[in-house]
């Protein structure tokens, strides 16, 4: 009897402690009823100071290479030597991972894609960036500056890094004929049943929506991130049908490399860097941009609002978009660089043309990851769209 009292009292105490201890998020903004972002008021750094000697980064695989994956690929050590900032990196597998890692408060900067950047701005986790303190910013393609995914009301919240498309990868020795359409992964009676893979994140719903946009015009999808309920349900149904053919989903890029290497996966979505890594391990794979176009990313280096090493973070942002380094990253990851001068520094002279750097017409075919919100991002006013939280729930249903 006395024990139960003690337990009850402790539970009540714990509850009290929790509710009071965690009351710190009152400053966060959100999406207003007008569909506009209302980030908390913050001002960017006015001037740089003494560098702190270290910087903690969250990055996509292949963005922060120190030679440990490939001895020839190293732009971290020169940075450390030049600035005295030791680089610690945490590789994130999905945008959701990046958002939650940023909330941990342990990191200074993140290479956020468009489906994470606005969430970070709205929650107050990302700080405005004074682009005047990043000398290389002036050479960034104008088409990437102050875009909806990296700015609010003309205030920059980061430095553009590069952009590219999610591709379709296949084992050249096991898949024939060579696929040219996303239909290969969405086809109902696939000969590759159980060997198909897909990206394990709710944002993958947009890939299905994109395919429906091209193959079922009656649904009227104009933008794979602006889906009303009917369009959303059709996309979810397509993914449920695809689930029967999936062997495993991937979000850890090394897991995808090993799955293609062993033949457990022979067909599915990928990034160019994964295809390159697999090829370097002698796996016969090829990655293509299907005829329907693709989803993709446009990444931005963003600064944590309470960063412990802001000066080193600024130094890193300037370093990663410097012409030489931006060229190296772009070539290693397989994306278009953000810095237009980077095109003069790529080892392949046709690289920027191959990746259509600065070619905005080409990137009309690529739908950059964006966080879906209730206000349709395609501009429709007569309906509401399904917000990302519902995408997350639906993704569980697809896989369940």
């Amino acid at each position, binding site marked *: 009897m006395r024990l139960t009292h003690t337990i009850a009292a402790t539970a009540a105490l714990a*509850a009290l402690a929790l509710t009071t201890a*965690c009351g710190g998020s009152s400053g966060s903004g959100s999406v207003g009823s007008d569909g506009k972002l209302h980030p908390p008021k913050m001002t960017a750094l006015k001037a740089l100071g003494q560098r702190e000697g270290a910087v903690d980064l969250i990055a996509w695989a292949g963005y922060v290479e120190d030679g440990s994956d490939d001895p020839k690929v190293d732009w971290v050590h020169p940075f450390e030597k030049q600035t005295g900032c030791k680089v610690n990196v945490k590789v994130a597998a999905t945008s*959701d991972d990046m*958002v939650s890692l940023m909330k941990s408060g342990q990191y200074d900067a993140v290479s956020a894609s468009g489906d994470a950047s606005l*969430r970070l701005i709205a929650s107050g986790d990302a700080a405005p960036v004074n682009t005047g303190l990043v000398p290389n910013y002036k050479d960034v393609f104008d088409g990437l500056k102050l875009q909806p995914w990296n700015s609010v009301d003309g205030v920059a919240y980061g430095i553009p890094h590069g952009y590219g498309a999610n591709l379709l990868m296949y084992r050249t020795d096991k898949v024939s004929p060579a696929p040219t359409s996303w239909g290969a992964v969405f086809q109902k009676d696939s000969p590759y049943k159980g060997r198909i893979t897909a990206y394990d994140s709710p944002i993958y719903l947009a890939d299905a929506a994109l395919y429906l946009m091209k193959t079922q015009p009656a649904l009227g999808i104009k933008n794979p991130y602006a889906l009303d309920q009917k369009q959303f349900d059709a996309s979810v149904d397509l993914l449920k049908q695809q689930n029967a053919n999936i062997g*495993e989903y991937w979000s850890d890029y090394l897991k995808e490399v090993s799955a293609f290497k062993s033949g457990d996966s022979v067909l599915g979505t990928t990034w160019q860097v994964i295809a390159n890594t697999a090829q370097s391990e002698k796996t016969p794979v090829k990655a293509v941009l299907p005829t329907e176009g693709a989803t993709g990313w446009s990444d931005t280096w963003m600064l944590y609002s309470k960063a412990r090493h802001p000066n080193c973070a600024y130094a890193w942002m300037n370093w990663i978009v410097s012409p030489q380094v931006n060229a190296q990253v772009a070539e290693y990851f397989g994306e278009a660089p953000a810095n237009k001068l980077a095109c003069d520094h790529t080892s392949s002279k046709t690289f920027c043309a191959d990746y259509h750097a600065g070619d905005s017409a080409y990137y009309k075919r690529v739908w950059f990851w964006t966080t879906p919100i209730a206000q349709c991002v395609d501009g429709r006013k007569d309906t509401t769209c399904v917000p990302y*939280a519902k995408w997350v*729930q639906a993704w569980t249903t697809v896989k*369940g």
Partner: protein
Amino acid sequence: MAAGGGELTAPPRPGVRRAVAGALHRRPRLRLSLLLSAPLVWLVVAYLGSLAALFLSAFWTTDPFTSDLVRTWTTANFSDVLTTPVYWHVALRTVGTALGVTLIDVVVAFPIAFYTARVAHPRYRHLLMVAVLTPLWASYLAKAYAWRILLSADGPLDWALKPFGLSGPGYGLPAVVVLLAYLWLPYMILPIHVGLAQLPDGLLEASADLGARSWRTFRSVVLPLVLPSVAAGSVFTFSLSLGDYIAVQIVGGKTELIGNVVYANITLNLPLAAALGTVPVAVIVLYLLAVRRTGTPGTL
């Protein structure tokens, strides 16, 4: 022990020590509470406290856009968990997996434990127990990835089964059950071994004298006496399987169990993950209540 009291730091004068000892001697309840306070604080704060925190956070929600925690009281997470069919499927699949793992472990562990406890020469019994326990020394991840390689398409298992026209299960739910059954096997062998070792020889001899053959002896003498040990082992295999989220990520293919659904939600939707996390807690409480009927707590 009573004289120490746990609170005398400076060397006390004999008078004080005697007074304290006398006071403690006269108050057995005080003595007991001093003895139990440290473990009780640990139990309540660290164990029940964390469970309480989990349960409480299940009543919060998150901002749909920024994923920030919103501390408003809502039961929406629980109604989501209870009304969404997919969570039911996942929960049932998880319980089924845990039961399957437990069943396989009982079937495999019993003969092994019987050998180590009753058949093997007493001199080798300790060595055999060490052999049973050695897999526990290796890292969980190393063993799980070893199975990933084993079960891979055209991997060793497929290669070995090919001459018979068969193929391995590949990645999926069967692979998860096999891996978990393999991982938790020692936890089942150990209690059964102890139970069998404690079985008096006289009972078996009496059974034989009365004309029972081995199967009859097993059914009517051995099994009823060892059942509590089996139940004890099953608590380990069942609860460990119920909470596992790593094996399923490594060899589960696209399989979803409660563990990895919780894991998938814990970063961005802690309240929903917490609500889901209470499901295994409830299942285990029910399971323990069921096991209690076999009289196991005494042997655990």
